[in-house]
C-alpha cells in the first residue's frame, strides 16, 4: 500500500493491516508522521508530536509480531491522537492554556491507558480551545487550528485539533472531550463521526475538569465502525472516577458491523424529529440536509415521530450557568502554587495567585470563571445556579417523555457549517447560541453521536446528530452504522485529500 492509501484507510483497516503483517507498525507510523510534518504548519492540529515514544512503541509492536507474540489488542500498532485536555504521562498536557504550558502529568488518563493496553500508539497531543471552553479552537494559546479542507475556516471546537488531525489523515482516530458539544460539533464541521457517551460510560479520570457533571471523553473517527471500536475500548467502570457507571460494555463494534450488514436494521426504528431544533435558526443547507436524512431513514423502514422538547429555549442559559459555575470551582486549582504558570514579583500570596491566574488564563476562560463565580455567589446562588439545576431536571423530563414515543432523536449537530476564522466575533453570546443542538445531551447525561451526511454549497460537511436515552449507545451506533452503509458520506474524508 502507498503512503497515501495507508493513512486514508479507516482505523479498523489499519489495525487489520498491521495484525496481518501487510504493513509494519513502524511504516504505518512513519506514514502518519510524514503527513503531520507536511501539514502541521498550515493546520496546526498538534500541540506536541510524540515521535520518539511512538517510534519506540511501534518498533516494540513489530518485534512482538516478528516473535509470533502479536498482535496484542484490537488497536495494535494504530496511531491515535489525544486532545491536550487529557492527561498523558510524561507528555505535555496543557489544555490549550499558557497556565499549563509546560506541565507533564504523572499519570495517564484511564481512557489513554485503555487505548495503549489495546495496542494503540499515541502519536501526539492535539490543540484545542483553552480549557475546552469554545467552539472554534481559535482560543488555543498555541495558535488557532485551521480546517484541513479550507484553511481560512475553523474546524470547530473545542476538540478542533483532534478533528482536524483525523480529517486530515494525520491520525487514524483521536480522543476528544465533550461538555456542551466539543466532540460532536467539530466532528460535524470536519466530516467525521464523533460520540459523546452517556455520562459515566467513559471514565473522566485524567480528563482535566471543565464542568464535572457535563464532561465526557469520547472518540472522533472517520467511520462509525472506527468510532464504535474506540468507544468499546475506552468505556467501562473505573474506580478512579466516582461517576463511573457499573454497567457492562456492549460489543459496539460487532453491533455496528451487524447493523451495516442487515438490510432491515432500521425497520421499525422510531426516529424522533425534534420540532424546536428544526426551525429557521438553521442555515438553509443544514435544514435541507437533515430533512433529507430524515427522509432516508424513513425510506429504509424507520418511522419518523414528531417530538417536542419544550424547554429547548432555556437550554443555552441552563447549560452555561451550570458549566460556568462548575468551571469556576474546577479552575480554582490553577493558582501558580503547585504547578503551572506562576507570576513573578508578587507582593504576597494573594497577589501571586491573582496575577498568576490573570497571566496564565485567556479572556474566554476568565469570562466564564467570573460569570460562574457570580452565579454561585451569596444572594444570587438560588436565582441562577439553583434555578439552572431545576430547569436541567425539566429538560431531562422532556427527554423522558420524548423517548416514550421514539427510540432515538435525529437533529442537526450544528445550525451552521464551519465558520470563517477571519470574521471577528466580538459577541461571545452569539457564539454560545450556536451550541443549541448539542448542550441538551450533556444536560441530560445522555449519549449522542454526530455523523456526516451532506456537504453545503461551499463543500463543507453537515453533521446529523443522533441522540439516545441513558446507555443508549447501542441504539444510536446501530442506527448510524445502518445509515452509513446505505448512504456513505461522499466527502473528502473518504475521497482523500493530500
Amino acid at each position, binding site marked *: 500500500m502507498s503512503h497515501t492509501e495507508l493513512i486514508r484507510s479507516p482505523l479498523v483497516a489499519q489495525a487489520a493491516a498491521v495484525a496481518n503483517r501487510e504493513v509494519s507498525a513502524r511504516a504505518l507510523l512513519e506514514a502518519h508522521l510524514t503527513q503531520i510534518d507536511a501539514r502541521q504548519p498550515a493546520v496546526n492540529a498538534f500541540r506536541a508530536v510524540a515521535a520518539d515514544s511512538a517510534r519506540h512503541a511501534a518498533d516494540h509492536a513489530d518485534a512482538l509480531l516478528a516473535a509470533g507474540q502479536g498482535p496484542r489488542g484490537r488497536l495494535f500498532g494504530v496511531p491515535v491522537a489525544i486532545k491536550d485536555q487529557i492527561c498523558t504521562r510524561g507528555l505535555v498536557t496543557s489544555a490549550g492554556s499558557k497556565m499549563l504550558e509546560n506541565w*507533564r502529568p504523572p499519570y495517564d488518563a484511564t481512557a489513554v491507558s485503555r487505548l495503549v493496553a489495546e495496542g494503540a500508539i499515541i502519536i501526539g497531543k492535539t490543540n484545542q480551545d483553552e480549557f475546552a471552553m469554545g467552539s472554534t479552537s481559535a482560543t488555543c494559546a498555541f495558535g488557532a487550528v485551521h480546517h484541513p479542507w479550507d484553511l481560512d475556516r475553523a474546524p470547530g471546537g473545542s476538540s478542533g485539533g483532534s478533528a482536524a488531525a483525523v480529517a486530515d489523515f494525520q491520525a487514524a482516530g483521536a480522543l476528544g472531550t465533550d461538555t456542551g458539544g466539543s466532540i460532536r460539533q467539530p466532528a460535524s464541521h470536519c466530516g467525521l463521526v464523533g460520540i459523546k457517551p452517556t455520562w459515566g460510560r467513559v471514565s473522566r479520570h485524567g480528563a482535566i475538569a471543565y464542568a464535572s457533571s457535563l464532561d465526557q471523553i469520547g472518540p472522533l473517527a472517520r467511520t462509525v465502525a472506527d468510532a464504535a471500536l474506540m468507544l468499546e475500548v475506552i468505556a467501562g467502570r473505573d474506580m478512579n472516577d*466516582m461517576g463511573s457507571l457499573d454497567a457492562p460494555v456492549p460489543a459496539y463494534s460487532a453491533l455496528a458491523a451487524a447493523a451495516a450488514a442487515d438490510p432491515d436494521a432500521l425497520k421499525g426504528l422510531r426516529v424522533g424529529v425534534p420540532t424546536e431544533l428544526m426551525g429557521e435558526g438553521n442555515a438553509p443547507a443544514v435544514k435541507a440536509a437533515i430533512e433529507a436524512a430524515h427522509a432516508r431513514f424513513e425510506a429504509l423502514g424507520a418511522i419518523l415521530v414528531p417530538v417536542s422538547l419544550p424547554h429547548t429555549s432555556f437550554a443555552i442559559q441552563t447549560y452555561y450557568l451550570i458549566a460556568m459555575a462548575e468551571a469556576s470551582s474546577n479552575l480554582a486549582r490553577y493558582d501558580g502554587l503547585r504547578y503551572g504558570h506562576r507570576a513573578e514579583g508578587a507582593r504576597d500570596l494573594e497577589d501571586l495567585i491573582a496575577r498568576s491566574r490573570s497571566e496564565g488564563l485567556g479572556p474566554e476562560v476568565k469570562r466564564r470563571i467570573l460569570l460562574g463565580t457570580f452565579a454561585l455567589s451569596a444572594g444570587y446562588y438560588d436565582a441562577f445556579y439553583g434555578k439552572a439545576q*431545576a430547569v436541567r431536571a425539566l429538560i431531562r423530563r422532556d427527554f423522558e417523555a420524548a423517548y416514550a414515543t421514539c427510540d432515538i432523536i435525529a437533529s442537526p449537530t450544528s445550525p451552521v457549517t464551519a465558520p470563517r476564522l477571519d470574521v471577528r466575533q466580538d459577541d461571545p453570546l452569539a457564539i454560545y447560541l450556536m451550541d443549541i443542538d448539542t448542550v441538551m445531551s450533556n444536560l441530560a447525561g445522555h449519549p449522542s453521536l454526530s455523523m456526516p451526511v451532506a456537504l453545503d454549497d461551499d463543500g463543507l460537511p453537515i453533521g446529523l446528530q443522533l441522540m439516545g436515552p*441513558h446507555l443508549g449507545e447501542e441504539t444510536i451506533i446501530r442506527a448510524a452504522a445502518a445509515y452509513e452503509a446505505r448512504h456513505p458520506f461522499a466527502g473528502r474524508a473518504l475521497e482523500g485529500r493530500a
Partner: protein
Amino acid sequence: MSTAHIDIHHVARLARIALTEDEAAQMSVELDRMLKYFGSIQDVALAIEDPAAGREPTPTALRPDVAGPTLDRAEALAGAPAHDGSAFTVPRVV
C-alpha cells in the same frame, strides 16, 4: 430577563483574578449582557415539586477507605514553579 448587575471587582476578588481597568470595563459590559440573557431562566415555572425528579440514579464508584500508594514526592514537585526539595515554596502567609 434578569436585571442583576455584576460588581466586577467584587467577583474578580472572589475568583482571585486580577483585572486591569480596561479588562474590568469590558468584562462588566459583556457579563451584564450575558446575565440579562441567562437570567431569563427565572421565567421558567417550576411545576415539579422535586428538582431531582427525572434524574438518573447517581452512580457511585467509591473505593474502599484503605491506604495505598500515593503520588511520589518527586513526581508531585516535578511541575512546581518553586520548591525546596521537600515542599512547594510560596510567599509568606503570616
